[in-house]
């Protein structure tokens, strides 16, 4: 086990400013999609700031695989910070 914690900013570029984006469902979708990847131990998505906190086992999944998945769901990803915690 080699747990790393990463904080990302995930934003949709094509927001049209409707109220729907503000519903939790976008955040929920993203959370579920990440959580279902192998080797993820914790996911937190802040639907207000778009900040995503992920803890994952580096031996089971790479950061690039995680960001690729998020990008495929239509988000732009920016890595804010990364640290080894265990």
């Amino acid at each position, binding site marked *: 086990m080699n747990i790393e914690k990463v904080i990302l900013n995930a934003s949709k570029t094509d927001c*049209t*400013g*409707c*109220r*729907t*984006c*503000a*519903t939790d*469902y976008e955040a929920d979708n993203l959370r579920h999609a990440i959580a279902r990847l*192998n080797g993820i131990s914790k996911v937190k998505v802040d639907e207000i700031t778009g900040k995503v906190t992920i803890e994952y086992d580096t031996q089971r999944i790479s950061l690039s695989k995680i960001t690729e998945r998020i990008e495929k769901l239509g988000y732009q990803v920016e890595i804010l910070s990364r640290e080894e915690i265990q």
Partner: protein
Amino acid sequence: MREHVKGLIPVISLGLFALAGALISGTQVTYAHEISITLTLIAVAIGYHIYLHGIRSLRHGNVTAQLFATIAIFISVVAGLVLPSASATGTAEAVGYLTAAAIVAFIILAGMTLEDYIIHRTRGALEKLINMSPTTARIRRDGVEVEMPIDEVKIGEIVLVKPGDKIPVDGTVISGHSTVNQATITGESIPTEKIVGDHTFAGTLNEHGALEIEVEKIAEDTTLAHLIQLVEEAQEKKAPIQNVADRFTTYFLPIMAVLASVVFAASYFTFDFEVALARTVTVLLVACPCALSIAVPVAVAATIGNASMNGIIIKGGTHIEKLKDVKLVAFDKTGTLTVGEPRVVEIKTFGNYSEADTIKYAAIAEKFSEHPLSKAIIAKATGMSMKIPDPTDFKTIPGHGVDAHYGNKHILIGTKMIETEISEEANQLMSMVESEGKTAIPIALDEHVIGIVVVADTVRENSLEAIQRLKRLGIKTAMITGDNMRTAKSIAEQIGIDEYHAELLPEQKVAIIGEMKKGNVVAMVGDGVNDAPALANADVGFVMGAAGSDVAVETADVALLGDDLTKVEYAISLSRKAFNRMKGNIVYAFIWNVVALSLAAFGILNPVLAVVLAEAGCISVVINSALLLLSKPKPLAKIKG
């Protein structure tokens, strides 16, 4: 479900505080006014979610509906606290402004929560798929059976699946015999027989026999997990029609900001400050592009969700729009319209020999041959529950047939092997069979022809219906094949296909699709293996029987996970319906906005009515789109173009 209940808590508490505030203000209780104002302010504060979004958008430099709502509510609160004088009517007015702010916050929050719920339900199609995959597996390790989390199962291990249990992994059956319902993957509820050597998918249901399965793929690598990811991604892929809505919504809110200022100025000079304020707030609240922005994406998500429950993966909104325009569907023949393997379709006998005798001797001679025609004969014999003894000796001559002995009997198979005169009757029969594009195999026993086995690639059970369905939609059908003209003609006649092109090389298939595309939107249906270039050249490429083959799913625009060709018609019908729904949504949302705005600008609406209108417009569009999820394939007789 629990999450949704949790989402209701702020909505309900906001409503209760607002209600309490409004009720207490009319009573004689000491400090009634102050208590009322406090309760109402608390109510407004509970809607903090809205304001956070509004303020956040400002930081990103976006103008959003949330921001408008935030400003409107803020103005009402400030007006309620500052504007009224200390007189009795002033007090009532103050409460009026604040209550309006609280009600507006309540309606927006309630609307958001309801939309959230409906959109979740739309995505629910996917959740259902996800819940199909078991989280534990029963494994045999060192001779002991243990139940363990799926994450800890290793590739190559043996999983035991009891009757009635879900299969937890992708793998190969190494022992046992059962039927498996693969509807999760293929959308077809008729169970598939599984014997040793067959492939199984995680998330499918084992019916009546126990199976031992060697693990090949687990967790996120299984076919089911891949399908889920694909569907999730497809739901995010925009339909081109969304650009229409987006172009509009880009300018919508900035224009609304200008309009609000104009309304404020005009009513300030015509009436007074308070009227101007009320109208401006109303415009800000009614100006909600939601209905327009979500007119398309929710419909796309619902359509793709619906399709995935029927074993169809439509890979994005673009394909929905292409599908709705399809005028011609070209099918590959072998393996698509037909089963793709020769089968014994008829047995003719001569003299006193029965069908069973003919097949039995043929099967003995062919027992150790790997030729596809031999396999067809063996399969037929096995299907007739025969035990096939070994031949005493045999010799296969490629391109000619088989010469074998069984005890003291001499078996010859194939026209070129049989040197004795073949009767006129048998000869005629054989040329007739061959003119139908089938293969006739004569069987001789001790130099006498005892029967003819007729072998042919058979048309799939539902090919005929698939073609009929498309015809009812007014769509032309074609078959393109590398096979010979005779066989092509025979199959085309059996299923009533409009046109056929035979003896084509792969590059000729590509060229023919190119020809067809002149003036038509063309879909092509194939197995994705040897017809990939032609599939890519079509406007929409359907790959059938795609479950288990990542490459096939990858190349397809639309993947049919099972073998049911009638799904082609359903994909097209569903797309037509979905597109009409999207178009209708956009028009409806546009009209709704224009009407509501006009009413607001001329002071016919008050803020509360404005927000009710805005939310109602939005929710009706969401519901209208989400209902696409409930669409079902129609029976053949009910299909109309």
